[in-house]
């Protein structure tokens, strides 16, 4: 016999507070869900694709897919992990549909960050560096690091998406940082030399 408990359909936020009942379908609830996750999804996607326009498109598509499939979310696991799992698929589909990823030299315009031109230039460079380096990492390591740092997921939530244990996720993040350290070191040296 099926589970009939209403709690089955009650989403839990990261803080443990129920934030949505699927059956209520209230606009307010969806707004809250959206506000809580838009930046996280966008950061995750931008870090992966390195282009703000593409990131915006994929972010919209992710939420659209989430909205259309809201009724399928069964309250099993974190809603953040569920949503970021959708975003992850969108990123994969994007790269699958392209023969070559976007050249990183293309403009990476990050809207609405610090207004200082120097800071803006610096951050563009860093995002480009990180995105480029992430592409050289193994996909699971890159995913684990970005989901944790940029999308704000917990180790357990990342484990849900990647199908890994907590310990395995921590190792993936650790190794991603080691790899990143290696990839970014020459870039940083180059930047320093260029500035000098």
């Amino acid at each position, binding site marked *: 016999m099926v589970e*009939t408990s*209403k709690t089955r*359909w009650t989403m839990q936020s990261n803080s443990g507070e129920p934030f949505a009942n699927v059956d209520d379908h209230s606009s307010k609830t969806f707004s809250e869900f959206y506000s809580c996750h838009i930046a996280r999804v966008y950061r995750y996607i931008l870090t992966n694709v390195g282009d703000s326009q593409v990131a915006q498109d994929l972010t919209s598509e992710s939420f659209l897919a989430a909205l259309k499939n809201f009724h399928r979310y069964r309250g099993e696991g974190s809603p953040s992990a569920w949503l970021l799992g959708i975003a992850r698929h969108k990123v994969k589909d994007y790269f699958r549909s392209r023969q070559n990823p976007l050249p990183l030299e293309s403009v990476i315009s990050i809207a609405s960050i610090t207004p200082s031109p120097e800071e803006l230039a610096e951050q563009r460079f860093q995002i480009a560096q990180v995105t480029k380096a992430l592409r050289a990492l193994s996909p699971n390591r890159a995913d684990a690091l970005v989901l*944790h*740092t940029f999308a704000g997921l917990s180790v357990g939530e990342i484990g849900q998406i990647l199908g890994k244990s907590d310990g395995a996720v921590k190792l993936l*993040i*650790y190794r991603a*940082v080691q790899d990143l*350290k290696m990839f970014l070191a020459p870039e940083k040296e180059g930047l320093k030399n260029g500035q000098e």
Partner: protein
Amino acid sequence: MDKSEKSAEDLVEFLTALRDEQATPHSLSLSEEEVTLTKELVSLAKAVDPDPHFVREVEKRLLALYKAEQRSTAPSLSNFVADLVLIWRLTMLKQKRFVYAIVVGIALMVSVFTVLPALAQFTLTHFAPREVEKLPFAGDAGTRSIESPEPYSSTSETLEERTDFTAKSESASLSIDPLISYSSDIKTLEGQAGFLVLWPRYVPPGCYFREGYYLDKPIAEIHLVYDSDNNQPCFDMIQRQADRIHRPFVGPGAVEEMDINGKAALYIGGVWVVNESLADRGTMSDRGLMITLSPEEKAKLFEGATWVEAGSQQLVFEHSGLLIRIQAGPSIPKEELVKIAESIE
């Protein structure tokens, strides 16, 4: 815990604390380089925000879509009409053994009059039964929600012209005749419905296809009627395009999730039984056969309803863009319904 695991543990702890703006732990086994890189990553992550204009625009679009979806999933007049037509058909056929189906119709039409939180929702995209202890009926002060069938409003004849629904506190009347068309030629019905019927390759021994009929828009449903050799009802297969959500009320624990050829299906065992049937509600008028219910009659029907597990059964699933319901009395074993469903091509 080996060295790598310890380092990983420390790094994630440090990273999490930075990200969540909490105090960073002391005595971690991290190099200065790792600490610096971690800080840079977190700082970069915090600095990246989507364009506020983009955020607002997407939210606006999503909310519009969300509201549209809500409208499409709300209880609709079409379900009510479909159920009354089913009642009428069974009445006209004088198949008293089909009383279970009549009361199923009553249960389904309740969804028109009440908008209540669902107690359960299941796996099908376009069929979401709601388990309730008692059939909800809002009464005169309740929240009635009858919607214009927007997708069909451009047709020459609107639902309002075909039916004569009045306020909840008044009688509800429905003219049936124009809505239903029988044909032994299924191609004719398919032409009317705008989709091709799916046929089962298996039917229980002794059952045969007797006839089909089409319930016109906004119901847009084809019913395939199977009888047994001795002209007793065997089962009905009801097909409609999976383009809207049907949300009937069912008794507690009535729904069982199943698997038909690897796809989700729902088995509903039971039926709402009421004190009286609608068998004598049909009257002839200048608009053809009419079914009329007074508010008192409606209330009486709903209040006296009890869920009887052995009364009826339905197997519901989606296949090739259609929502399919196989409905049968208790004489057909559940396994047979599954075999019918699995054989659909």
